[in-house]
């Protein structure tokens, strides 16, 4: 049980289960999926489809956060990407042609990639803090999107473009295929190759990584470019959903939702260790929550209130202080355990390190001589018999 409690997926999945249960109580048919014309329909499918843009953005955001960064500009990139694609289609002589749509998508994605590269340039080459570097594009980006649409909400009719989001393939909406497919591909790539480890090394200690020969700058830059590209793709899904390019409102606050999804998924904003499965769960929590509010018949304007509650609950449950409580409670039940490893106590006597107070990051205790709060027998130092119990 305590193993499960500590697992990074526990709290997001628990939140998801609570939401699903609440929905099923309010509307027993909530989980029902029916097949019409060979297409799957039902609330879970709707949730997945609605979550597709957020999933793409949260994917990029997780990787960026792993490198100690953050990308606030993705919402603006969503707007720019949708605006460019739709402007191109509406200006073309044949909006319904697949070629037109293909070119439109290519232009939009290319521009998004450039915007991502721009963020990466500011962060890695100029060394500007990520939050402020991407704030620049966040502010200016929507202005640019409005410049592209001329301040109007561009609407077009183009079946192939619309199909990018709501078309069906093998029973599922294409938006779901695109987003989940890309997510899985990236997640597998990250863990099957050394990319994940190198990103984490970069995020935890950029200077050490550089000296170890990690191409931190290239990696970080790539990750911002990817975040831009994914945001562009999300922008296409968003605009294909409404078939309108709304420079003001497309993808508004989606960067915040994505950051929340990442945090709910158990990846710390301070960078380093990340887990994409957690992010996936986090996205589902947010998407289901939005759906829940509608199911329960509450004004969608109030959704933020519930979002706040979920975020506060999950982050508090993940906070070291609360975990310590859990650990202490567990310790009372089982006197000898490995709870202390959670950081509740640290013996520190390393003259080389910073002076530490308990709870702050202390230089590692000396395993050879010092008694170390670690009860795992395999890790017990040889001369531990000298330690007074």
């Amino acid at each position: 049980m305590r193993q499960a409690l500590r697992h990074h997926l526990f709290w997001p999945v628990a939140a998801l289960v609570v939401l699903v249960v609440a929905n099923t109580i309010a509307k027993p048919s909530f989980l029902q999926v029916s097949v019409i014309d060979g297409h799957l329909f039902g609330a879970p499918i709707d949730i997945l489809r609605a979550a597709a843009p957020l999933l793409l953005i949260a994917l990029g955001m997780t990787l960026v956060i792993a490198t100690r960064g953050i990308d606030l500009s993705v919402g603006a990139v969503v707007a720019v990407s949708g605006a460019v694609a739709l402007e191109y289609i509406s200006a073309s002589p044949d909006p319904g042609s697949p070629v037109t749509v293909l070119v439109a998508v290519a232009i939009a994605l290319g521009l998004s990639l450039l915007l991502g590269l721009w963020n990466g340039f500011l962060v890695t080459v100029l060394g500007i803090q990520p939050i402020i570097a991407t704030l620049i594009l966040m502010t200016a980006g929507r202005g640019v999107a409005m410049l592209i649409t001329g301040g109007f909400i561009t609407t077009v009719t183009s079946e192939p473009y619309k199909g990018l989001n709501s078309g069906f393939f093998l029973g599922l909406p294409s938006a779901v295929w695109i987003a989940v497919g890309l997510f899985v591909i990236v997640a597998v790539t990250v863990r099957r190759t050394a990319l994940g480890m190198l990103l984490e090394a970069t995020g935890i200690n950029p200077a050490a990584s550089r000296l170890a020969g990690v191409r931190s700058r290239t990696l970080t830059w790539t990750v911002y470019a990817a975040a831009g590209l994914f945001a562009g793709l999300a922008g296409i899904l968003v605009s294909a959903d409404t078939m309108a390019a709304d420079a003001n409102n497309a993808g508004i606050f989606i960067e915040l939702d994505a950051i929340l999804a990442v945090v709910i998924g158990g990846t710390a904003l301070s960078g380093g260790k990340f887990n994409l499965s957690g992010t996936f769960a986090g996205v589902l929590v947010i998407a289901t929550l939005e759906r829940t509010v509608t199911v329960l018949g509450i004004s969608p304007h109030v959704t933020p209130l519930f979002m706040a509650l979920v975020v506060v609950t999950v982050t508090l449950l993940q906070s070291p202080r609360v975990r310590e409580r859990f650990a202490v409670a567990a310790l009372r039940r089982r006197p000898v355990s490995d709870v202390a490893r959670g950081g509740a106590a640290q013996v520190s006597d390393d003259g080389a390190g910073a002076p530490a107070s308990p709870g702050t990051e202390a230089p590692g205790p000396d395993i050879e001589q010092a008694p170390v709060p670690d009860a795992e027998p395999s890790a017990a130092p040889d001369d531990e018999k000298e330690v007074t119990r």
Partner: protein
Amino acid sequence: MLPRRGRTPEEPAAFEKGFNVTTQPVVELTGITVEFPPVTALAGVDFRLYPGEIHALMGENGAGKSTLIKALTGVYQTSSGTITVDGAEQRFSGPGDARAHGISTVYQEVNLCGNLTVAENIMLGAAEPRVLGGLHWRKMRRLAAQHLERMGLDIDPGSSLDSHSLAVQQLVAICRATVGDCKVLILDEPTSSLDADEVESLFAVMRRLKADGVAILFVSHFLDQVYAVSDRMTVLRNGGLVGEWATADLPAGELVKHMIGRSAQVLESVERGHDAVRPDAGEPRLQAIGLGRKGSIQPYDLDVYPGEVVGLAGLLGSGRTELARLLTGADRADSGGTVVEGAPRKLHTPRAAMAQGIAYTSEDRKGEGIVDGLTVRENIVLALQAERGWVRPLPRRQVDEIVAKYIDQLGIRPADPEALLRNLSGGNQQKVLLARWLATAPKLLVLDEPTRGIDVGAKAEIQKLVSELAGEGMSVVFISAELEEVLRLSHRIAVLRDRKVVATVDAEGTTTDQVVELIARGNVAEGDAA
């Protein structure tokens, strides 16, 4: 020099000897036990500190020195034992509380705020003067200037702290600690980032405070410093008390034995370290020709031959680290060039240097060495994997083999590849770093202060390893603040002064004094004058 307070005038003789049993101790710890269940970090330790003495607290890493200090200052809760200050039992809630009772602590790293002014760093917290409920800046600067003067520091109290050198910042930290009623001053490794001159000024300040009757608790890894300045010492080992001695009564050899609690065999085996065969000359593995960088080190020439250990000797800031950084691509040179095994190569990034078989461990282990959130396994394969690029991951089986090999060979503890590096001791972290580079099979290993701040045992093992590696044909550039260590390990020594290589000498037949002479040439007499 007679102490002004803290002793009764009846027993000056006992006091002069620096071992004053009849005076009441200003701090007395009895039977202190600190537990972090299920382990005991301090077990029934007694400790006494008298007014007007400099008392060294000795022990290896993990012996319980820091735990003792933290128990005294209320950072850690004691599970049994009493703390008596000036005859009254006390239990402090934290460093602030201890400070209010006249016990101040200065740590190895300067724990002041660089963005504030010197005056604020000295006065802010308890002693700042006020006017109409707000800060009285002018008075604060004036008072700070007085305190600085008392320490012999002549700097502008209105300047921001980070415009000063580390040594000055350290002295400002001590200045802050002694403002107000300071009965006990705890100096936890204050000298590790200071050069010899600066250490001397620190000692002068310590002696001055001692003469004022302040009790000083001094922790240092440098034995010669401890012998130079302390009156008494208490030795801890494995969380227990070994004993208390007058410094004059305890020879260094004895002290080390008490500290490590085992025979000094490991140490002795390294003593003979480099009278192993001097490598044949032949083609140098690496030649630096006029390599330099403005503001960091003047152009220098350096050859390193296969199987040779080249030591770099010089004070902190003499350019020894900067020299190493240019050799290894950590910093980019702006003049000169490098020749690797006869062919000119540009070493402008760490990757470029790695491609030539050059590895570098930084002196800043925490900041530029370890990746503390990753595991031992990941840390060991990091450089090897980085070299291959992310697309080609090392096969897991190969990773496990490499990791097992180095854990075994270097004796990394705990021997758990999945342990997070932040949970390892400094010495073991250093070994993991060495493993990271050895795994890349370098031809030239540049080690910048690999033995700083780690315990005697691990230090000896690393020294031994360096000798062995050189014996196997690896070239090593070895940097250490401890001259004896450099002399013992190196075949040749490059001496640096003021960001310039001033001499290169054979280690054979060179004495410490001669190297000191070289380092200090021009201001030899200064140590005596201070």
